[in-house]
């Protein structure tokens, strides 16, 4: 899967580009930190860094052939695994696809990353 996602990510976020500057603080990507715990990332240092985060957010362990699982020195995986809808701020529109995640609070430890990410807006 990462082969396919890399195709459009490289096109949208080419190496050496400055798109990440425009997206810093406006784009929020949820990832799962191993072994558990969700985290929202909204700051990047390069387009490559942003591509890595996107790939990591779409990486299902043992299923996708992700090139990168390591973001900022930590192992990460698909953001849906520990996504907690209760952490999404009230003023955000939230379109969610998983009824389980919607109505059952995930039995994981949450980092309350949303508060940290959104309070700095």
């Amino acid at each position, binding site marked *: *899967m990462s082969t*396919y*996602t890399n195709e*459009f*990510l490289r096109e*949208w976020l080419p190496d050496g580009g400055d*798109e990440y500057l*425009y*997206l810093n603080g*406006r*784009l*929020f*990507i*949820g*990832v799962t930190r191993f072994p558990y715990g969700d985290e*929202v990332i*909204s700051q990047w240092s390069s387009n490559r860094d942003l591509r890595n*985060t*996107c790939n990591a*957010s*779409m990486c299902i362990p043992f*299923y996708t052939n992700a090139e990168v699982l390591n973001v900022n020195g930590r192992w990460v995986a*698909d*953001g*849906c695994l520990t*996504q907690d*809808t*209760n952490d*999404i*701020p*009230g*003023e*955000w*529109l*939230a*379109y*969610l*696809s*998983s*009824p*389980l*995640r*919607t*109505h*059952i609070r995930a039995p994981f430890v949450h980092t309350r990353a949303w508060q940290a990410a959104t309070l700095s*807006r």
Partner: protein
Amino acid sequence: MLSRTSSSTLVALSSASCISIYFWYKLLNPKQSLLPAAPAIIKSQSSGDLTSETPTDSTPPNAIWFGGGSWASTYHTGVLMGLRNTFGAETVNNTWKAGGASAGAAVALGMLLGKTEFGEWPDESVQENVLRLTKRTITVPCEALSNTRFARKQSFSRSSSHWLKGQGGWGL
């Protein structure tokens, strides 16, 4: 023969586990549907009511979160098209904040970059590429299901309706 028997046993046990989990879930949550026809539309409220399908205030939003799920991304493209039609593409692309997890992260990224691939129903060539991708993703875990008919059923016959339903999200 032994490995085949073991595989069959494993599949049977997995199926039994999934079925038991499903019934336990239905028992504990009798009012919720495990497999809705479309992703749930939720306007999260500060009061904690996350199940309301209609907004309780008329304040225009300026931030959106796209949940994960590869099939849901087709629904998200419809949502994005509805947002652009309602609030204007310039406003949505340049002033809104967006977030997402998994496939939703790609939609959020495309939204902020102003990509028009999201919000326009793809032409036949794009459909063919997505179909090829769909077949491949299905092939990886279970080769027995990797046929064109099944892939098409799981992709366009379903996602097109999702895309259309997405345009009718949050008061759009």
